[in-house]
């Protein structure tokens, strides 16, 4: 008995150490032992608070069990304060240096993406019942439920800080040669650029801007995992952040001019060339002319198809620590989807025959239920219109999925489900899987001036 206990202790230590370093789990059942019961993600959840960035009752102070997450658990209990607990199974665990790691997983109608670096933790929880953001900052760690609400009067105006003066040319591009990334041609390499206002906003909240940018890419990767099926391959594509940095780009210009900046200016193009990026995304804080995102989209209305799309593979998303744009919690992934050939839902799409006729987003309401409807990443909320007109009920919760008819997102605890696409009609995931192999090669098709083709 004593020897069994000693053996168990050794195995536990070994398994913990191994999983910490390589992200692998050890199957203890083969040794006749039950794996430990999954632990709660949050070791403490306080009473709801009111904050500047969220309506009353939608923000909770929390403590994250970072030690448990660092051990790369196969499963964990997502103990959200306003719904039944969900059991998440690990999709991936990636160590990113001492004290730095990513854990992602899915289950019971939820996806979780959790990034930790020393002193900071960020997380995204995408559930059928709602979306949540987890951030650590100067005021501790908080969990916020993202509620898409009707914008207040005056929302068409740009936020006040748009005119905030910014120092120009504060940063020069100097990239050490040894940092150049190797070409890996089975993934989309993304260069994420951000403005000084984004950094200032995140720092003011006590956050880490580089971690936030990494998290955007990790959310995107999880969307590619969530949306994958046998017909698309698994995942739809891998998405990898080759580099992120602040650029000397103010926000007084329009998003239209941002696209041109990404395409033509020396700084982003030099960075793209050095880092061999397939896609450049710019994250800015402020809307301009009420615009929340812009991206070139391939293959319709006379636009170049995926094979010729390399110089146009750029997008802009307004994304900061609070929901400036209420239309989508995932507007970075929304614009990313456009670049890969995805389109809006048919009610919000001019394009009856896009790159593929079924490359559309999807929304639906639960059958015979008063619960909220759901929509995929590229779908808008379809509001209530005339009598008899279909509309998306309630919050019309956005899920971290691109439309795929093969994928039914199921929450067995809340007895809710959402078939995320319609076969041969609404399947953005399939077009993303089709375009991705072209996107893997976009960086190879860019010359120094950004417009020559090989």
């Amino acid at each position: 008995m004593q020897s069994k206990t000693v053996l168990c202790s050794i195995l536990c230590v070994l398994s913990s150490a191994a999983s910490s370093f390589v992200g692998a789990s050890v199957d203890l059942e083969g040794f006749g032992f039950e794996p430990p019961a999954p632990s709660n993600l949050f070791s403490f959840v306080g009473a709801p608070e009111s904050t500047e960035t969220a309506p009353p009752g939608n923000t909770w102070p929390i403590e994250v069990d970072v030690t448990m997450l660092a051990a790369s658990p196969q499963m964990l209990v997502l103990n959200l304060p306003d719904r039944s607990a969900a059991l998440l199974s690990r999709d991936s665990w990636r160590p990113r240096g001492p004290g730095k790691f990513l854990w992602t997983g899915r289950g019971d109608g939820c996806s979780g993406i959790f990034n930790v670096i020393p002193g900071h933790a960020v997380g995204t929880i995408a559930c059928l019942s709602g979306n949540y953001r987890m951030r650590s900052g100067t005021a501790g760690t908080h969990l916020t439920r993202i509620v898409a609400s009707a914008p207040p009067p005056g929302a068409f105006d740009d936020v006040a800080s748009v005119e905030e003066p910014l120092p120009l040319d504060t940063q020069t591009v100097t990239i050490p040669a040894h940092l150049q990334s190797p070409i890996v041609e089975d993934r989309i390499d993304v260069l994420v650029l951000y403005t000084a206002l984004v950094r200032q906003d995140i720092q003011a909240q006590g956050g880490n801007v580089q971690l936030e940018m990494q998290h955007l890419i990790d959310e995107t990767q999880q969307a590619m995992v969530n949306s994958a099926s046998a017909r698309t391959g698994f995942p739809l594509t891998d998405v990898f952040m080759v580099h992120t940095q602040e650029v000397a780009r103010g926000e007084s210009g329009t998003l239209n001019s941002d696209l041109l900046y990404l395409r033509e200016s020396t700084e982003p193009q030099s960075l793209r060339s050095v880092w061999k990026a397939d896609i450049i995304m710019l994250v800015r804080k402020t809307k301009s002319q009420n615009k929340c995102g812009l991206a070139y989209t391939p293959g319709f209305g006379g636009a170049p198809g995926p094979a010729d799309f390399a110089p146009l593979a750029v997008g802009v998303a307004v994304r900061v620590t609070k929901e400036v744009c209420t239309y989508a919690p995932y507007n970075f992934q929304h614009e990313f989807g456009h670049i890969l050939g995805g389109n809006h839902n048919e009610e919000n799409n001019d394009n009856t025959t896009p790159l593929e006729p079924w490359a559309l987003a999807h929304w639906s309401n639960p059958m015979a239920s008063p619960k909220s409807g759901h929509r995929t990443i590229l779908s808008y909320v379809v509001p209530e219109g005339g009598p008899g007109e279909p509309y998306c009920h309630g919050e019309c919760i956005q899920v971290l999925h691109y439309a795929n008819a093969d994928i039914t997102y199921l929450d067995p605890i809340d007895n809710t489900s959402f078939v995320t696409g319609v076969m041969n009609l609404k399947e953005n995931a399939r077009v993303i899987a089709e375009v991705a192999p072209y996107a893997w090669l976009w960086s190879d098709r860019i010359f120094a001036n950004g417009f020559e083709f090989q």
Partner: protein
Amino acid sequence: MPGYGATAYLPTDSSFSDMRASILLAALLVLASASASAGTWVIPADISVSMTAEPRTNLVTGQPIHFTITATNHGPLPAPILDIFSSEFVNEFDLSNATADCDGILALVAGDTEFGYFYFYDWIVVTAAALHPGKARTCHLTLPLSANAPDAFTFTWAIPDFFIDNDSSNNSASVTLRRATAAPATLPALSAPSLLTLGSLMLLLGWARLRGSLRNPQSDHSVA
């Protein structure tokens, strides 16, 4: 993997090969890029935009409209960079049957606002080779009218205001497209009560004038 065809985009000004011009262009590119951080790009020339659209009136749903947009450099220097944007549109055209044949690249931008979506075309006029003084480039675009298009609307192509050229007065061209059912642009319409009031006033005025004429037949021709 489906066979999305590749197209080679070739420089359109093959004559641009001499060394001095290359150095000048490089300098212009540096200048243009340097100004980009401020959100503007300077084009050291006067670029004009013109457009034809056929047909423009008596349009019906599905009818293709053939646009020809032309960018001309009036000098004095080559334009190292130039984009021309269409006005934003939502669902006025049937993009599924759109065709284009353009110098450079015709790109489509999908935009998202707080409450809806829009598109615009970005004609990237200058790709590999600068647009030289005296030269013009064209874009032929055919867009069928969609069922959602209003009876009349204006479609514009313009150099966006973050490009600074020598004369902004000729940087845009617009056309008004009208359905067969659309009334031509005339005087502003008046409501029925307004028309009735106006008619009554005219009758009253006519009657008063007639009365005056009958009392003094010479008055209209009297000279002091």
